[in-house]
């Protein structure tokens, strides 16, 4: 697992940790049942406060990405496939909306945008 903290990012540090672990789960880099470093260990490695890492883990647990077993540590939770797809779709929608926004700034019409999308989709 790799986590990179940026000091110039506008996202707070706990959010950066949350996003990167979430991303790693989406990408399948972190698999169900896999152990995460302890809160204190991660804080030491990243040289950040324990409360910050705790906040990130609490948020991940709240969103059911991870599970914490007292005395044993935190693990990647069994992911609900439906829920996961739902979350992915929401992220995709956000990204597309952003693209549409840029297209409008560039005065591209829907046809032109669709053409571009088709082209890119087939290229990939």
């Amino acid at each position, binding site marked *: 697992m790799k986590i990179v903290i940026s000091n110039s990012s506008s996202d707070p540090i706990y959010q950066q940790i949350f996003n990167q672990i979430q991303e790693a789960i989406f990408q399948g880099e972190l698999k169900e049942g896999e152990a995460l470093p302890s809160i*204190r260990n991660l*804080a*030491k490695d990243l*040289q*950040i*406060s*324990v409360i910050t890492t705790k*906040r990130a883990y609490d948020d991940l647990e709240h969103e059911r990405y991870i599970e914490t077993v007292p005395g044993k540590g935190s693990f990647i939770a069994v992911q609900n496939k439906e829920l996961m797809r739902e979350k992915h779709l929401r992220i995709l929608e956000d990204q597309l909306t952003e693209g549409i926004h840029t297209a409008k700034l560039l005065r591209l019409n829907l046809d032109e945008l669709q053409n571009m999308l088709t082209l890119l989709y087939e290229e990939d």
Partner: protein
Amino acid sequence: MENILEVNNLTKHFSGFSLNKISFSLPKGYIMGFIGPNGAGKSTTLKLLLNLLKKDGGEIKIFGLDSVRDQLAIKNRIGFVFDESFYYENLSIDEIIRVISPHYQRWDAQAFKRWMKTFQIHTRQKINEMSKGMKLKLSLAIALSHHAELLIMDEPTAGLDPIVRRDLLDILTGLLQDENMGIFFSTHIVSDLEKIADYITLINQGNIIFSENKDQVLEEFKLVKGEKELLTSAVRAFFIGIRENHFGFEGLLRNPGLLPPELKEHILVERPTLEEIMLYTVKGEDHA
């Protein structure tokens, strides 16, 4: 959460300076930075914690024990690291240890040896031959070799180069792997040490300005920038501190949600650093 350190309404009067009923607490397993400008009352507070000064009122509890009544029991369990080395300059480390180790019930000669090896310090060296960074490491090693559960440090990073500061960060975060440990440090320069702080207590002119979770502080305070024309007296009232120049203003406030909505289109809102929070809070008080 159990508090390793608890200060309630602590008061101390000098001619010309008073510590005014200050209160704060540090839960077990965490690290707190005690920040404020020179003369804010940091050293006075630290001396009171260690019972080196007689308080005029309030109470200090360390490990749940009273700082005055249970002084001896507490001192066996705390380690302190001061800016100034207070060891006899002409003695060697070996000689110093011979003098001080009998005073600690839980002195661990093996642990001390290990720390000296880790820090690459020769114990035959005299204190006055050591650099500032080495002296800091020696104080730390002594504190850690009697298995202190609470580490109290006064300006530990003052005058240290970035490499030694990084070493110190590593040592402290290493210590915090133990959930029963607590660390309290004071500083007047906001340095990299704050990166690992869980709580920040800001003191100015003998008063606690806030004592809170660092993440929350950094999230709630905002630095606002804009044109000077926007600064009506009603708008000014929202700010803790403001700095103006020819081109505009920059001000610190908490909870910008309260600002008039029509203002929001014309201002730039940024996240301040701890240093900026300290600067504006302290300055703001001066001209308030």
